[in-house]
């Protein structure tokens, strides 16, 4: 493949991924409002378009035209940079997530991800670990007590749960022996006894899956771990002082992170794009993508379901749970996996 062709393909893939991701972010907000509405016996958005489907567009326009307030006591450079950092880190990690097998269009074969690197999983972890800065700096630079407390809580929580999150993934890495997300998915192909898929969740990484799920909810600051933005005590936490598009950036970053977490869970534990493939060649190319998106969608639904069901933790419970329950279990799981593989 020549350099020019590579650059053109990369630009096309980046544009498509960005468009799909931003649309998915907008519509996961709609989905959340709709599903939580129905859980609470309400209708959710219904006014803008059929089933309120145009609500995300209306919200976007509203946020764009709102006044962009800059608190006089804020530290301006970081106050402006913080939402950008949050947004950038949330969007960047999608670049290494593969959503399907290689496809061939017009004689050009390309993998279905922006870039196929052999340390994909580590890059995702690296980018998300930088995402803490957006939250911490917004809390500090706002120079307001609610933002400050929210930012402190968020950074403490994210740093604590990152350990359990990372350790829960090591089990999968030991089983697969590769950091490449493509290798990890390919290792999960096939079936036990002809009907149980060889996904990692069925091959001994069952506990790791639930550790990952819990830690990921804490990493994305979602209920029941949404203490950084606990409305009842902190107004809105770290983004209290933000308005207009800056607020929207935090909002989009949160949902983009949820999508990333769902994608990683799908790739590592649920077999990625593995699933029954049949029919003509065009279906052979498209069905894996459909399976992948369906699994991610289920994860997003679980996210929303949990939000509609569970109450919020108390802060000391949150910390105790992270360090005294999740961390020991993930270490034990790691040791057990290592022993099993060595044996």
């Amino acid at each position, binding site marked *: 493949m020549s350099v020019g062709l590579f650059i053109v393909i990369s630009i096309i893939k980046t544009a498509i991924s960005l468009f799909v991701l931003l649309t998915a972010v907008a519509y996961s907000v709609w989905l959340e409002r709709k599903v939580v509405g129905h859980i609470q016996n309400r209708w959710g958005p219904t006014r803008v378009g059929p089933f309120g489907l145009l609500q995300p567009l209306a919200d976007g326009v509203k946020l764009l035209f709102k006044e962009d307030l800059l608190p006089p006591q804020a530290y301006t450079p*970081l106050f402006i940079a913080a939402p950008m950092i949050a947004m950038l880190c949330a969007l960047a990690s999608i670049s290494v997530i593969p959503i399907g097998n290689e496809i061939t269009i017009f004689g050009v074969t390309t993998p279905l991800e922006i870039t196929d*690197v*052999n*340390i994909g999983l*580590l*890059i995702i*972890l*690296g980018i998300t*670990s*930088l995402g*803490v*800065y957006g939250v*911490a*700096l917004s*809390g*500090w630079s706002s120079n307001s007590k609610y933002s*400050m407390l929210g*930012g*402190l809580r968020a*950074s*403490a929580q*994210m*740093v604590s749960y*990152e350990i359990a999150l990372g350790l829960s993934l090591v089990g999968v890495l030991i089983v697969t022996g590769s*950091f490449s997300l493509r290798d990890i998915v390919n290792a999960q192909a096939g079936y036990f006894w002809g009907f149980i898929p060889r996904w990692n969740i069925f091959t001994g990484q069952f506990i790791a899956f639930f550790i990952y799920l819990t830690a990921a909810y804490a990493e994305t600051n979602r209920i029941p771990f949404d203490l950084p933005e606990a409305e009842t005590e902190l107004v809105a936490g770290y983004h209290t002082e933000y308005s207009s598009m800056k607020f929207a950036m935090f909002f989009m970053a949160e949902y983009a992170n949820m999508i990333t977490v769902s994608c990683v869970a799908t790739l590592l534990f649920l077999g990625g794009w593995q699933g029954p493939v049949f029919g003509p060649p065009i279906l052979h190319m498209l069905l894996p993508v459909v399976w992948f998106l369906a699994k991610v969608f289920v994860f997003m639904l679980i996210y929303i379901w949990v939000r509609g069901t569970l109450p919020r933790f108390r802060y000391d419970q949150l910390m105790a749970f992270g360090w005294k329950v999740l961390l020991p279990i993930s270490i034990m799981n790691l040791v057990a996996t290592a022993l099993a593989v060595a044996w």
Partner: protein
Amino acid sequence: MSLHLVLFISFGAVCVAGAINLLVQRHPINSALSLVVVMGSLAGEYLLLGAEFVAVVQVIVYAGAIMVLFVFTIMLLNAGEEEQTHGSRVALLIGVPGMVLGSVLVTWVLFSHSGTGSVAAGALPGPPKTLGRLLFHDFLLPFEVTSILILIAIMGAVVLAARPRRIQKREG
């Protein structure tokens, strides 16, 4: 000039600029963030050398965990801007020559003992497998000694952090 050299110089320039900014800035948060930039550009240099695992671990551990704790501490203590002092004469008289001497020494050792005097792209152990073999096989003893050192440091931190409460209890 090859693309490799261009990237090397740009990352190096960002790294040095970040390091200077770290010293010049008067607010601790700005200094801490400059250090994050230094860590990030160092990771870029590692990538250029073909050590992709080390590069990403550099970002995860240093930029993503240790510096976050720095920023967290600065936020928690609400440290304000530092006052400008005239600097100490000892630092000027001994520190600056010492620094120059140290850099010259390191440069001389690197140039005289690395054979060719330069490192080729991709010369460092890149894949985690090679790195793991080096750490857990060839350099196992230093590795274990370091881990014990860190364990002692953790215990020291726990002792220091736990002391005031015990005194209070005795008084109460």
